Structures are given as C-alpha cells and as structure tokens.
C-alpha cells in the first residue's frame, strides 16, 4: 500500500509525466540521428538534469533510453541507416518493406513491437528484479564465450546460399574486432600508433558505412527510389497482424531480457539473435530478408526489452550492463543515490518513480510515434536528388558526434566502399556485422577462461550454461548446413528439369 501511495503522490504531486515525455521525445530524436547512440543521447542530456530533483532526473534519463532504442529503427527502415547499433538488425527487413512501398506498415510494426518490448521489460523489472538479478551473477567468462559462439552460429544461416563468401565476410568482421587494445595483455593491435584506434573501431561506423553509405553509392544516378511516391499513412498493425507477430515478439522479449541482465552487447546482440530465432521458428521463414513483418518485430521488441531489463542489474548491483546504463549510473551518483539493495529501502520514491515514469513513457511512445512518423515519411519522399545529399550530410554530421573526430568519418566512408564492393561481388555483409559485434566478446572470454583454468579446456564443461549454449549452437549449425545443402541440391535438380 505504501508504494501505491508514493506512486499516487508522484503522479499528481510532481509533473513526472512531463519529465518522462520530454525524456522520451528527446530519446526518439537523438536515437533517430545516425551515430548518436542511446548513451550519447543520454550523456548530452545529463548536464541539464544536475539541477533537477533526483526522481525527475532519473525518470528523464531512463525514458531517454527507451526513446532512443525505439528511435534507432526509424532511419533503419526509411533510409537504411541504423540510428543506433541495436537497430542494425531492423534494417534487413525494415528497409526491404520500405522498398516495397510498405514503409508505413513497417514503422507501425516497429512502434508496436517497441511498446510490447518495453512493457515486458518493465514487468520483469517490477516483479522479477530479485530472482533475475542472480542470472547476471551466474554468467562466468565461460558462459560469455558460449553465448558469443551461439551468436556466431547464426552466420551459417545468413549467407544467402553462399556459405564460403559468408564465412569470409565473418572472418573479416572478426578481424576488425581485433583492432585496438588487447583485452588481456593491453598491448596495442593494428593501431599503427594511432591513439584514435586504441579503443577499437566503433561498430556503428561499420554498420552505417556498410548499410547506408553503400546503399547511397548503389543508388547513385538512379531516377527514383524503390516504390516512388508512397504517401502511405503510418498504421499500427491490425489485430490479425498482431496475432501473427506474437511469436517473434515473444522471442524478442525473452532474448532481450536475457541480454539486458548480462553485461556487454547492449542490445545489438539480442537484436541479431532474436532476428535469427524468429526466422527459425517462423511459419514463413522464406519471407525473411524479403520484407518480413516478423523480421522487423523481433529485433525491435528485443532492443526495447533490453532498455528496461538493463535497469535490473543496475538497480540491484550498481552494475551497468551497457554504455547507456553507465550514463544512468552517473546520473544516480551525481544525485547522491547509490544503486544496490538499499536503494529500494532508502529511496523507494526514486524506484517507484522510475517504474511509473517508464510506464508512462511506454504508453506515450505510441502517441509521440504517431505524431512524429508521418513527418519522417514525408521527409524521405522528397525528390531523390536532394534526399541523397541530405542523407549523406546527416550521416557525416551524426557520426562526428561519436568522438568529435574526422577519423571516424573516414572509417565510415571507407566501409561504405567495402560494402559497395561486397554487394557487387555477391558477398553477404550480415556475417561481417556479426563478426564485428561479437568478436571482442568471443576472444576475450575464451582467453579469460583459459587463463583461469591454466590452459585446461575442460573448464567449459564445468559450466552448465556454457554446455547448454554450445550444444544449442552445434544443433543450429548442423540444421542450417543440412538445409543449405538440401536447398542447393533442389536448385540443381530444378536446373536439370528446366
């Protein structure tokens, strides 16, 4: 009853609705600008919150996180540019839908899925914090290694019929992930003495280069953008569509919660894993990559679930599981709030306020989305000649904010060329992206495990989580390979008959 009283006070006593909606809107705008990640959006807001009451500041920052995770999908669908790392998986089917003139539908699905994901994450946060917080502790270096392998096993089914080319792309991705400071010894690798590369290459530069810049290069000189003049209205999925999306959204919720609990990744790994699982369990797996609604729903549910679920380890241990929650931790500390078990006793008003603010933001997301999206659709329907200039300018302005470095712009443009050549030569680039996202985790946790065991590989068998995940990866790879060979044989048979 006590917390209900607090909730009542907060709702009507202080303008918490206002702070959560401002935070959400700021987040959607920041997240939808390419290169401005959720954590940068939050960090830009942080100085403004110094003067606020603690609960207002924390609600505003948390709602910014929710908004940014959703906002990233808007440019992913409309201009093939993931606004944030975790929206990269949304590009695949989202942009494909846009090309088919179904941008409004894709945006509606991503909005609806984001709301579902946020609500599920929030539910976990409110009722399951205590039991779930121990999941974070159960994860050892061996488990992280196995999780990374599970992620890489997806590659086997993402190669569009060319396994060798897909593998080559994945290896190049893993190579990019080795640039920077060695995670174990601290020696520099492939930095060529440049301090800009000490921290490695930002994955979002690779994604924007490979997805967006290469697409602009591909389209250069063409008259119309695929599906011209589509003045479609943004529309939320119909009841039957909602029903069809249930399965992929459920997968997104589960994997998103899992990812939110464990340090690392920060949404992008969950998004890719759930995209692939959604395809594995879908009734129409053949539609994936060709504009599947489920292909948009799964990653968008997952990354929004992460935004709420990541608060669980933050509040219960004070452990930030991503850059964004690290900024939130900074916000808590500046206001003299110490996360951990005692936060729930000593600052119950902040905790309840946070729950309430996030809930309001989730509902407001639909409203803000419906108001904002038609404008975005209008923007991308301007004449192509101008649009190309504006998109390139947006990309180059946005990624400059990452490190205020022209060097990063060079990387993104260079990766644009790489992406263009890969497309021309028929190399799939999703494996490359996965290699970049997962490479660091796989390498560092493998080496940490062996360091702990003194070089003995049986350490992986002592960890039940690792064993389970590794068995699952083996099964997945085998199934994908069998399918690949069966498809290849069928294609050959068809050739013969034709």
């Amino acid at each position, binding site marked *: 009853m006590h917390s209900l009283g607090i909730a009542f006070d907060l709702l009507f006593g202080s303008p918490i609705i206002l702070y959560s909606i401002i935070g959400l809107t700021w987040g959607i705008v920041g997240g939808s600008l390419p290169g401005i990640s959720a954590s940068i959006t939050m960090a830009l807001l942080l100085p403004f919150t*110094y003067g606020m009451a603690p609960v207002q500041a924390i609600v505003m920052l948390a709602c910014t996180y929710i908004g940014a995770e959703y906002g990233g999908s808007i440019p992913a669908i409309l201009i093939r540019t993931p606004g944030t790392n975790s929206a990269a998986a949304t590009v695949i089917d989202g942009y494909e839908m846009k090309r088919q003139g179904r941008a409004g539908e894709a945006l509606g699905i991503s909005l609806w899925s984001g709301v579902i994901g946020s609500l599920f994450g929030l539910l976990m946060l409110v009722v399951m914090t205590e039991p779930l917080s121990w999941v*974070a502790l159960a994860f050892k270096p061996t488990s992280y290694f196995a999780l990374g392998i599970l992620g890489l096993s997806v590659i086997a089914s993402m190669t569009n019929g060319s396994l060798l080319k897909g593998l080559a792309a994945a290896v190049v991705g893993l190579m990019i992930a080795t640039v920077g400071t060695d995670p174990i010894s601290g020696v520099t690798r492939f930095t060529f003495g440049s*301090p800009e590369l000490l921290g490695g290459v930002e994955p979002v530069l690779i994604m924007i280069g490979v997805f967006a810049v290469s697409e602009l290069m591909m389209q250069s000189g063409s008259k119309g953008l695929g599906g011209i003049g589509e003045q479609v209205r943004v529309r939320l999925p119909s009841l039957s569509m909602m029903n069809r999306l249930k399965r992929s959204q459920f997968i997104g919720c589960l994997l998103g919660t899992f990812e939110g609990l464990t340090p690392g990744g920060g949404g992008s790994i969950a998004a890719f894993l759930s995209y692939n699982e959604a395809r594995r369990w879908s009734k129409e797996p053949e539609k994936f990559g060709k504009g599947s609604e489920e292909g948009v729903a799964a990653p968008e549910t997952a990354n929004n679930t992460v935004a709420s679920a990541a608060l669980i380890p933050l509040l219960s241990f004070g452990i930030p599981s991503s850059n964004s929650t690290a900024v939130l931790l*900074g916000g808590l500390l500046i206001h*003299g709030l110490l996360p*951990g078990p005692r936060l729930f006793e000593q600052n119950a008003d902040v905790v309840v306020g946070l729950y309430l603010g996030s809930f309001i933001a989730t509902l407001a997301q639909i409203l803000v989305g419906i108001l904002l999206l038609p404008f975005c659709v209008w923007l991308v329907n301007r004449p192509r000649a101008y649009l190309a200039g504006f998109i390139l300018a947006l990309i180059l302005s946005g990624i400059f904010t990452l*490190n205020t470095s022209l060097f990063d712009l060079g990387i993104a443009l260079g990766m644009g060329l790489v992406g263009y050549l890969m497309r021309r030569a028929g190399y799939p680039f999703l494996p490359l992206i996965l290699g970049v996202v997962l490479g660091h985790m796989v390498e560092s946790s493998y080496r940490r495990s062996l360091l702990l065991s003194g070089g003995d590989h049986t350490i992986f068998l002592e960890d039940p989580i690792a064993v389970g995940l590794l068995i699952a990866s083996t099964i997945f790879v085998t199934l994908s390979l069998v399918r690949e060979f069966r498809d290849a044989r069928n294609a050959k048979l068809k050739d013969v008959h034709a």
Partner: protein
Amino acid sequence: MRHLAIATAVAASLSAWSATHAVAQTPVDYPQKVVTLVTHSSPGGGSDVFLREMAKHLPKYVKATFIVENVQGGSGARAISRLAAAPADGSVFYATTPTYIYTSLLSKVQHGYKDVEPLANFFTDSEVIYTRADGPFKTLKDVIDKAKSTRGRWGAANPASLERQAAEQLKKAAGVSPAVVSHEGGGDLMINVLNGTLDIGVGEIPELRPQLEAGKIRLLATFDPQRMEAFPAIPTVKESGYPVALEKFRGLAGPKGLPAEITKIWDETVPKVLADPEYQKVYKTESLVPNFIPHDKYQGFIQNFGSTTETFLKESGVLK
C-alpha cells in the same frame, strides 16, 4: 558540448555566489575572466564529475568563471592536444589522471604527457584489494598463501591500467604467480569476484560502494601509502608485508610555460579549496583522498610516475 558546459557553469557560479556569502571569503584576483577545464571523460564519467564538483567551489577562492569542456576520443590524446595548443596564460587546464600517461606511452600521440606542464595535484583515488564477503579470504595473507599453494585467480578492471600494474607489482613483491585476468571495467570485474570466479579484484572504492554497503564485499587492503580515512580498519598493502604503494593521482595540467604568477595563485588556492567544509563533504563520500602537491614538486611527481610506468610496460613487453 561547449554550449552545455556554459549552461552548467552558469548554474555552478550562481550556486557558488550564494555560498560565497555564507563563508565570507574574498576571492583572489585572477588574470583571466573565464577558465576552461578540459577533460577526456564523457559527461558523468570520473574526471568529468571531479571537475564539475571542483568548478562549483573554486569561484569562492578565485575570481573567475570555470567552464568544463569534454574533449573525448583517442583515450585522452585529443584532450592533451587541445591543451598543448592553448595559450599558456592560465585560461585552459586539463584534468590529469594516469590515463594520459598510458595513452602517451602506448601510442604515437601528437602531444604526450611531456608536452604539457603539470600544475598541481588535488586528490588520490584509493586503489583497494577486495574479495567476496562469504569467501574464504579474511586477510591479504590468506590470498597470497592460496596463490603459493595452488593457482591463484586475481582480477584487474582493465588491461594496461594502473590496477593491472598494481596486481603485477604485488605478485612480484610476494613472489607468487597467480593468473591476473583483465576485464572490461569495474562492473565486469566485480561480478566475477562476487560469483567466486576470482579470488580477489583490484579496484576503486566508488565502483564498490553499492556492494560494500550491502555487505557483499570485504576490503582486504589498500595500495594507498597511508590507511584510508573512511576505512581505518583496513591495512595498507605495505603494512601487510608487501612493499607496494600506488597513487592514482587527480590534478590539473596546463600548456608549457605557465607564468609564475598563475602557478602561485593555484599553489595558494588548492589547499584552501580542499579545506572547504562543503567541498570536503562531497569528496569524502567519493573516498577521494586530498593530496595537495604544489607546482614545483608536481613536475617531478608526474615525471617519476611516467618513467615508472614506462619501465613497467617495457619490462613486461607491452612496449617494445
């Protein structure tokens, strides 16, 4: 970022103005109206919070407006370059931490730590050794004994960091060879100490506070030269019998050739700011140890820290 910094600086000077009246201190004249404090950390990061808190209290003692500017990227290299290019008239300073020495040594930077002039030191961050509260280790000696009999498992927050250096020096001093595992930061390390993967971790108090207060973590020793004020019962590593002591410094540096009148003002001001009761309240909760080192001694301190680190990195083969 400049625009945000100005907004907060205005707020900071306003709050400082009201505080000035309470203390009734007359701030000394300063040749510059606006002083920019540069940091390589992002808003909300360690050095950023350090500077923003300091900027609130400095105007009580120095007649100037203090602005914090975040110059991120290149692990501090860009911030040092920003400083090295600034005029040496006391209008721009940079928040120094060991990071800028590591970056200078590990990459070919345009401007390194030798290209700027240390101004004065303010604080030391306490580096501590900790273990899980329900674990078998009660003292540092227990940990060393385990490392002698079987394979010890120690953790450091980051590779190529002061924490890693501390763990390696302790290893050498105690004559043991446990595995020292670098992590992805303090949170990652703490999880592996809490779940029993590691025997001990080397970290800083602010990262540990939630678990310390919840009673899940036990401190075993500190690498500080003296015992910590906030935890007087915790021995230093030296007292435990291993001659290792480290100081993770926090101070300011300026461009080369700072005029004597500027450095004199700061030498007089820093002890006053550190003694400010309101400021003390803030930094004591962060477990920062006030450690004023004046301008003439700070040069030697930083050079010494730099050459010790360089020797360590060369001996271990990280630097060729």
